[in-house]
């Protein structure tokens, strides 16, 4: 059987891969996307769903802003409603140290159009009368919000297909090799695919592929710990995050239009990328049950109806590997977004498409070079 050819092979069909496929098609490049399971089934589909900019590392904000522009046109571009709600994002602090952290960030990030407002206790409790009495300060970003992660990547994937991308779900890649000027991908069902460019968007499994090309990265697979309440009347506009001093105390939540409140936090569990298993630790569920009422006491009246986890790739320095390979021409990476990738997804796709098609991108991503992990080369004698 002869190989199927395209300009670009994308390995991994999460939001990064689906988005890259779509934007490469916008630039007239042919695309093959290989996904072992279904589009958006892993980290892209199980994360908290925050589309915030506030709180991101400063160097990430240009990419985040670029992505935001695409989120604002989601329905128009991708043809689906993914329940985007832009009623703001609120960080709530309990101590003077928390307030300091928020003030510092608001100052550092002030030129990125996030519109952050520091709020004192009185204003906070007036504007958000459900907040707990222990909260003494807050920072409100009025334009941020959240969307439905279960819907987003699949919608982008379907749009990519409509735009002419060749998407192969339930197709496990067994090898990716350079053969002359081409990358050759072989899949478990015996097919081969060829392209001069390969883009690795394989999330927590990205390291397997980068290692094969001599570029291992320090990444750990972890399972986010999520839970959700029954649907209750819509009352909480912003995504809310309680500042914390330990991972166990971390809690953040968002209420969807239908009324359920999604709650994350309480730390992570390790995930098994070989068996593709990730579990929710009941203790971490109970941490959230304890932390959430400190932010909103009314939680004590509610019930959680479901928990879930998933598999996300976390880099040691919490930054992704994004950009060209440092060793292999034609090879690109966009994986390891360390639990922060959902909001960046559309932007990452647009940037990678720009980079692959034109050789450069206007959005600064040099700090995400995979070359930063390379061992220093010994000096020549």
């Amino acid at each position: 059987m002869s190989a199927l050819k395209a300009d670009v092979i994308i390995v991994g069909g999460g939001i990064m891969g689906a988005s890259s496929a779509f934007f490469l098609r916008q630039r007239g490049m042919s695309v093959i996307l290989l996904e072992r399971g279904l589009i958006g089934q892993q980290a892209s589909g199980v994360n908290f769903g925050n589309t915030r900019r506030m709180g991101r590392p400063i160097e990430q904000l240009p990419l985040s802003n670029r992505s935001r522009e695409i989120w604002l046109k989601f329905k128009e571009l991708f043809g689906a409603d993914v329940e985007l709600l832009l009623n703001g994002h609120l960080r709530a602090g309990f101590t003077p140290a928390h307030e300091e952290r928020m003030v510092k960030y608001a100052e550092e990030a002030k030129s990125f159009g996030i519109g952050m407002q520091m709020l004192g206790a009185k204003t906070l409790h007036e504007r958000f009368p459900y907040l707990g009495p222990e909260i003494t300060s807050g920072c409100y970003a009025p334009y941020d919000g959240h969307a439905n992660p279960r819907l987003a990547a699949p919608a982008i994937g379907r749009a990519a297909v409509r735009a002419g991308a060749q998407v192969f779900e339930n197709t496990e890649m067994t090898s990716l090799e350079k053969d002359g000027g081409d990358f050759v991908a072989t899949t478990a069902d015996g097919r081969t695919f060829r392209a001069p460019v390969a883009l690795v968007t394989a999330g927590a499994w990205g390291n397997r592929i980068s290692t094969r090309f001599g570029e291992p990265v320090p990444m750990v697979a972890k399972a986010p710990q999520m839970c959700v309440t029954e649907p209750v009347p819509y009352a909480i506009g912003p995504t809310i995050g309680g500042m914390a001093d330990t991972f166990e105390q971390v809690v953040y939540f968002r209420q969807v239009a239908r009324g359920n409140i999604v709650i994350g936090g309480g730390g992570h569990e390790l995930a098994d990328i070989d068996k593709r298993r990730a579990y929710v630790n009941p203790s971490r569920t109970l941490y959230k049950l304890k932390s959430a009422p400190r932010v909103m006491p009314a939680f004590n009246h509610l019930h959680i109806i479901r928990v879930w986890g998933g598999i996300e790739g976390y880099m040691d320095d919490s930054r992704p590997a994004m950009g060209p390979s440092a060793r292999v021409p034609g090879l690109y990476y966009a994986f390891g977004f360390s639990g922060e990738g959902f909001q960046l997804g559309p932007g990452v796709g647009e940037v990678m498409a720009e980079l692959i098609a034109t050789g450069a991108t206007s959005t600064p991503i040099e700090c995400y070079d995979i070359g930063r992990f390379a061992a220093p080369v010994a000096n020549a004698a």
Partner: protein
Amino acid sequence: MGQPRVIIIGAGPAGVRCAETLVRAGLRPTVVDENRRDGGQIYRRQPDNFTRPYDKLYGTEAERAQSLHASFDALRAKVDYMPETLAWNIFGGKLHVVRDQRSKALPYDALVICSGATDRLMPVKGWHYAGTYSLGASQIALKAQACAIGRQVVFMGTGPLLYLVASQYVKAGANVAAVLDTSPLMRRVAALPKLLARPAVLRNGLALVSYLKRAGVQVLTGITPVEITGSAENGVQGVVVRDKHGNERSFECDAVGMGYHLRPETQLADLARCSFRFDAETRQWLPEVGEDGRTSVPGVYLAGDGMKVLGADAAEIGGRLAALAVLKDLKLKVNEDELQALRAEQAKMDRFRRGLAQAFPWPAEQAAALPDDAVVCRCEVVTAGDLRRTVREMGAQEANRAKALCRVGMGRCQGRYCGHAGAEIIAHAAGVPLEQVGRLRGQAPVKPLSMAVREEVE
């Protein structure tokens, strides 16, 4: 070695007999039960201040009920009984339970899950209206609360429970307008050889039908449900079906009791990471069980309707067998003759159960026939049309994918009542075998968990 820690979940027939067998062997098991009182569902005990005698409550099963209750009463001092305690999760070799908003993690050497069953439902257009109840619910209203679910009740579905509940209602003085059985009479005849595995039970069943007819209740077989009529504000107003000749028939009522046999509660087996296999005969996924209730996970056992629906009598046998399996696996002595006798009894039960499945089949074909505007998922109000659109326009061919995209099974009940029909609709719309659609993965908590719950610190 200290006393082995054995935890039994469920104080119904399986759990009680399991506990009894372990206590006889010198162990002190923990018995966790969600309800206020022991007995499970079929032998549900009425509140303390109720006065109806056993024969009134349990009819032909009065003796068995009395024996079960008396057995547990005698056991209470010899087990660690935890009533009103929900087993909400299993993780890291511990059972997580909650009572009075305190959660504890109980380690175990052996865990016997006797979680019982719920009714199995096939949706019909209008089944979301106030006044639609499961057959089990109709029975609980009567047995545990001395109430009828309405002034004029129609019972619809299939299985022996349909006739049992209807006749119990008539006997108790309720107004039953009709009993509508989707299974054609001929199927009962064809299943007779298997049903004869338990002649007494078969006789009781036949007697119920003649009782109903003598009481003037319309009993129709081979019907096809069309619609439960009603209004959003007032609830159920009637039932429309097609009879076996294809003619439309309407029945006025303010309540419908509906059900198609039972389905095992398998969430805890799922959380314990037991493997499941597809049972083609009953068109559902069941935990894989080896001999005597052993699962694919060492130390975890199943018994009763929570393993496979075989009925209360078989549950008692299953509970005893699981206890013997636990003892054997803990390298304790068991009576081999007792073991063999119990296995032989259970085999008879299984033959009868297969006869019931043949006589009163799950009406799988009704799923494909549901109109697009029929609600399938009551919790999230997802219609058959929504689900079909998710298959056809979004490519969902698998249960969890469909759930992620259109919310079917994502509500409070975690797919207990929509899961089976949902899978049938997906299979039909996608043109794939039912087995390929898979099953909804169980997620903790098994039932809604109050956010006021805190971890109990020793």
